[in-house]
């Protein structure tokens, strides 16, 4: 009797392949690696937010025991190489290009933030390098610094870059102002809201690390680095920074312990260790400590906005006008410029039919760490603004906050839906996700819970967010027209081995997402190969075709689709081999992945996978005149459109009025992420994203003082969410399929972080509804809540 193999394809909660090695200490991270004869590198960093460098004296440091070499900004400048490039060119309102000041690898002449690298010390050990770094004497002429957005824009503000007058990078807009003005003039009601999106520090579990080496025999450079996109690093660093031809440059991003966006970017340390490796003739390793991570990993968010919404007498949204100022930090990080523009203002329609939208964005330089994409990247900022504004509008029009959302939702029969801010949504059903979340959270029963909490002296609140986001940024041609300096396709290769096992090569990179499992399930589903016989290879430019990496929830909708296309090619070729072996017409060959067999339609004649694979590589009986041997196919996929996940998040909180502490009581997420490949992984992604969203809403605040010193520079002062800060997160999905990729998938990596912050703050504001609170900015810390309650009580 033949046992039926368990189904391991789409929709199954397969345990994650990668977890055994992660949980048993067998992961291989960059810092786990030691290269033969390796040296260690420490960067001397500026203690000042803004200063001119008068001189750098390395003599005493160079004489310290174990020191191999010391390089300064002057040494790097002498080689006449490039600075770190920006990957997205934004144009001003008048069509002129943005200001793009240089981003040096090692600071030369000036430092512009606390943490700016002034020198690199290479020594036999890390401790020796640290000892020597302390002996370097830098003569700084300390300059006035500016850390805040408004302060940087003020008249007379300290200027960071000659190439950026008034500290402005660009002054950009999207949408049409004319129709917005007309709508406002005729509006029944106008609701205005000023709000801040708090600056965040990513804190991936693994700090950044890099090992640069040079093989004098082959002339090849190798960089091991903690990257989400090794080919992008190869292109940027090779072509724009160090002038290393790509065939002589290998980038390896091995196991990476979390990225959340912060490991997309090309960082100066990667270029520095690669540049210096041939000069010292030995590999150079650098690993950040946590303090360094706080002060050099690109931060996230940091917007100040004013939003105005025009409504008619029925609460229908007529027009939206948004003015946003964004902090880009001291230099342009790789995708910094795209985050407050095309990843933000294009999302301002949300789930609503607002017919006219106009957004203006001014991005500014400050003496702070560069700011770039962080989980959600622009979309959380848009969602927070919009979902707060809708709540305020509900309150000020007297329309129930759920009802006002229903009145303005894009209806299921309106898809594809063209927004006034460039995007065209392909699918969604916001009513369905709303209804499911209302039911799951027992929204209707809330007032009883509020009354019960009041008896205990607690202020209970419930908040809702009906969000939309855009994933898998695409197509390349459109992104290119908007200023992207990179392609946004993805590549996948399926290598079927002679005995039928499969190696998957993907240009995406997994740093916690579980690609090794999800992609293996895709192969199991489409090719019928057992899950355990599929391995996924990623992260090494010498092994995989040129791919674009992982960010923006793109891996499955873009990378997974490339794999499906490669598998389609495999199946087509395998059918031709089967037709030959079965002496049948290829049109009559059917492939049954569940049976793992090719058969002649209407007969019981079939060939098993293994036999087809073996025949492809041992082509004794083979249509060699018509068909090449081998079963190894590559496909590139450039999407026609973004994907548009969306849904409804509901948060329930309880405030202790005595201390101001906000306790998360419950969190309900009903997300439409398209077809789900592995529900367990989707739930994990949503829970993780919600944890980060709750962190932003209640806990996390990156604080600089007026002189540009980072006050929240360690876990002692920066509040990362802990388990007891969170609530049970109920996760459900409601699927509408993406219409333009074969799997119907949309992506799930960011929905949690995008949808949740406004739900939490809406709940906090609801809890304080009797305290005259119209709005409060994140994070809702105990001190802030107490201050609100106390001020109110004092006023009474």
């Amino acid at each position: 009797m033949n046992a039926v193999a368990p189904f391991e394809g789409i929709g199954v909660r397969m345990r994650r392949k990668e977890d055994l090695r992660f949980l048993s200490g067998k992961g291989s991270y960059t810092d786990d690696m030691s290269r033969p004869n390796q040296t260690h590198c420490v960067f001397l960093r500026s203690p000042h937010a803004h200063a001119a460098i008068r001189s750098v004296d390395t003599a005493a440091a160079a004489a310290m025991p174990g020191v191999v070499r010391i390089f300064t900004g002057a040494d790097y400048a002498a080689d006449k190489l490039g600075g770190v490039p920006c990957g997205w060119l934004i144009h001003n309102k008048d069509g002129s290009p943005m200001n793009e000041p240089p981003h040096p690898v090692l600071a030369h002449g000036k430092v512009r933030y606390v943490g700016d690298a002034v020198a690199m010390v290479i020594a036999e050990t890390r401790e020796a390098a640290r000892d020597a770094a302390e002996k370097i004497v830098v003569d700084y002429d300390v300059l006035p610094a500016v850390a805040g957005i408004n302060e940087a824009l003020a008249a007379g503000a300290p200027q960071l870059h000659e190439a950026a007058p008034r500290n402005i990078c660009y002054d950009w807009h999207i949408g049409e102002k004319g129709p917005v003005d007309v709508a406002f003039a005729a509006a029944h009601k106008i609701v205005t809201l000023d709000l801040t999106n708090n600056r965040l520090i990513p804190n991936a579990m693994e700090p950044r690390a890099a090992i640069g080496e040079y093989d004098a025999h082959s002339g090849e450079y190798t960089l091991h680095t903690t990257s989400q996109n090794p080919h992008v690093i190869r292109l940027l660093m090779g072509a724009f920074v160090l002038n290393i031809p790509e065939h002589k440059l290998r980038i390896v991003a091995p196991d990476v312990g979390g990225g959340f966006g912060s490991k997309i970017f090309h960082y100066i340390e990667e270029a520095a260790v690669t540049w210096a490796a041939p000069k010292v003739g030995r590999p150079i390793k650098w690993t950040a400590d946590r303090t360094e991570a706080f002060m050099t990993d690109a931060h996230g968010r940091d917007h100040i906005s004013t939003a105005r919404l025009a409504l008619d007498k029925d609460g229908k949204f007529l027009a939206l006008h948004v003015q946003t100022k964004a902090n880009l930090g001291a230099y342009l990080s790789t995708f910094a410029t795209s985050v407050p523009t095309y990843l933000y203002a294009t999302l301002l329609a949300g789930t609503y039919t607002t017919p006219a939208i106009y957004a203006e964005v001014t991005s500014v330089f400050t003496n702070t760490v560069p700011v770039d994409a962080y989980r959600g990247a622009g979309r959380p900022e848009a969602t927070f603004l919009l979902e707060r504004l809708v709540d305020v509008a509900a309150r000020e029009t007297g329309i129930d906050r759920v009802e006002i959302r229903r009145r303005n939702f894009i209806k299921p029969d309106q898809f594809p839906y063209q927004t006034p801010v460039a995007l065209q949504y392909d699918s969604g059903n916001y009513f369905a996700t709303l209804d499911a979340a209302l039911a799951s959270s027992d929204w209707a029963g809330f007032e009883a819970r509020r009354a019960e909490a009041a008896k205990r002296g607690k202020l209970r609140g419930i908040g809702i967010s009906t969000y939309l986001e855009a994933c898998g940024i695409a197509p390349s041609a459109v992104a290119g027209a908007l200023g992207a300096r990179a392609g946004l396709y993805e590549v996948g290769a399926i290598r079927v081995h002679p005995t039928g096992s499969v190696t998957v090569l993907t240009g995406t990179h997994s740093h916690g997402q579980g690609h090794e499992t999800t992609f293996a399930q895709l192969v199991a589903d489409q090719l019928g190969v057992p899950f355990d016989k599929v391995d996924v290879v990623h992260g090494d430019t010498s092994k995989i075709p040129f791919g674009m990496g992982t960010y923006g929830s793109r891996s499955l909708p873009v990378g997974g689709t490339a794999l499906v296309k490669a598998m389609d090619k495999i199946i087509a070729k395998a059918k031709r081999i089967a037709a030959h072996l079965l002496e049948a017409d290829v049109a009559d060959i059917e492939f049954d992945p569940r049976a793992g067999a090719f058969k002649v339609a209407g007969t019981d004649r079939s060939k098993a996978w293994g036999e087809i694979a073996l025949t492809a590589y041992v082509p004794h009986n083979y249509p060699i005149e018509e068909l090449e041997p081998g079963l190894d196919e590559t496909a590139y996929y450039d999407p026609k459109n973004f994907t548009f996940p969306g849904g409804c998040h509901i948060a329930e909180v309880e405030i202790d009025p005595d201390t101001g502490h906000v306790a998360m009581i419950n969190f309900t997420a009903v997300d439409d992420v398209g077809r789900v490949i592995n529900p367990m992984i989707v739930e994990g992604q949503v829970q993780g994203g919600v944890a980060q969203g709750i962190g932003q809403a209640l806990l996390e605040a990156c604080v600089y003082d007026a002189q540009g010193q980072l006050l929240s520079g360690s876990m002692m002062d920066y509040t990362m969410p802990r388990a007891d800060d969170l609530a049970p997160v109920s996760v459900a999905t409601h699927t509408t399929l993406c219409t333009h990729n074969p799997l119907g998938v949309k992506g799930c990596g960011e929905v949690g972080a995008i949808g949740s912050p406004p739900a939490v703050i809406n709940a906090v504001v609801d809890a304080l509804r009797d305290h005259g609170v119209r709005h409060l900015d994140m994070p809702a810390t105990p001190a802030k809540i107490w201050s609100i309650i106390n001020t109110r009580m004092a006023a009474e």
Partner: protein
Amino acid sequence: MYDFSYHKPSSVADAVKLLAADPDAKAISGGHTLLPALKHRLNKPTSLVDLSGIAEMKGIKREGNAIIIGALTRHVEVANSDVVKGAIPALAYLASHIGDNQVRNRGTIGGSVSNNDPAADYPSAVLGLGATIHTSKRKIAADDFFLGMFTTAMEADEILVAVEFPIPEKAGYAKMKNPASRYVMAGAFIAKTASGVRVAINGAGPCVFRQTAMEAALAGNWSAAAIAGIKQDADGLNSDIHGSAEYRAHLVGVMAKRALAAAG
């Protein structure tokens, strides 16, 4: 971390000798404050005198109407001690809420008390219970021990050997944690003792202190109503990105009320 030499004496006398011989030496027990400072190169001792091998500094015992806890006793041991739970449950409660499991499994009462971090838990119990500090040289009353931020009455070559806690009639502890560090933002340890009512406030100020207005009120009337109207003065309290002095002053009242409720 800078290089240092390492000593592990087996008696208090030997430890004192080592500390006296080297003014830049540091004593270490659980290391939960000192080690992070060393790792960050914020401290550069020439030598570390590891106290963990000194048997006479270990253990919990009851002597008459007092509990004596050796300086090397880890927080987890105090939290789980039947002797402490039976005699001063508020002290066991306090110990069970210090930091996290890792901290409680390494950190010691002697380290915490002699470090006198304004945001530490133990100083409030020491002051609130009117404990006596036993050092290698002498006995010091709690009221004379805590001098200011990270400063105590102990001299450089003096080692905290044990803490003697008189058993109170009632005692309770409550604290508000700093959301980031989880150290104490404001805490209150309230005790009804043979020598009167004591209210010690930690976290809120630069050093643990007694809230004498509350003590006086509770001496006459051991009830929440007695302290309900007492406002802590914000002057001189800590202020940082997590909370103003005014917020901390407010929390002192809230925590005192909760500590009183816990004391019963």
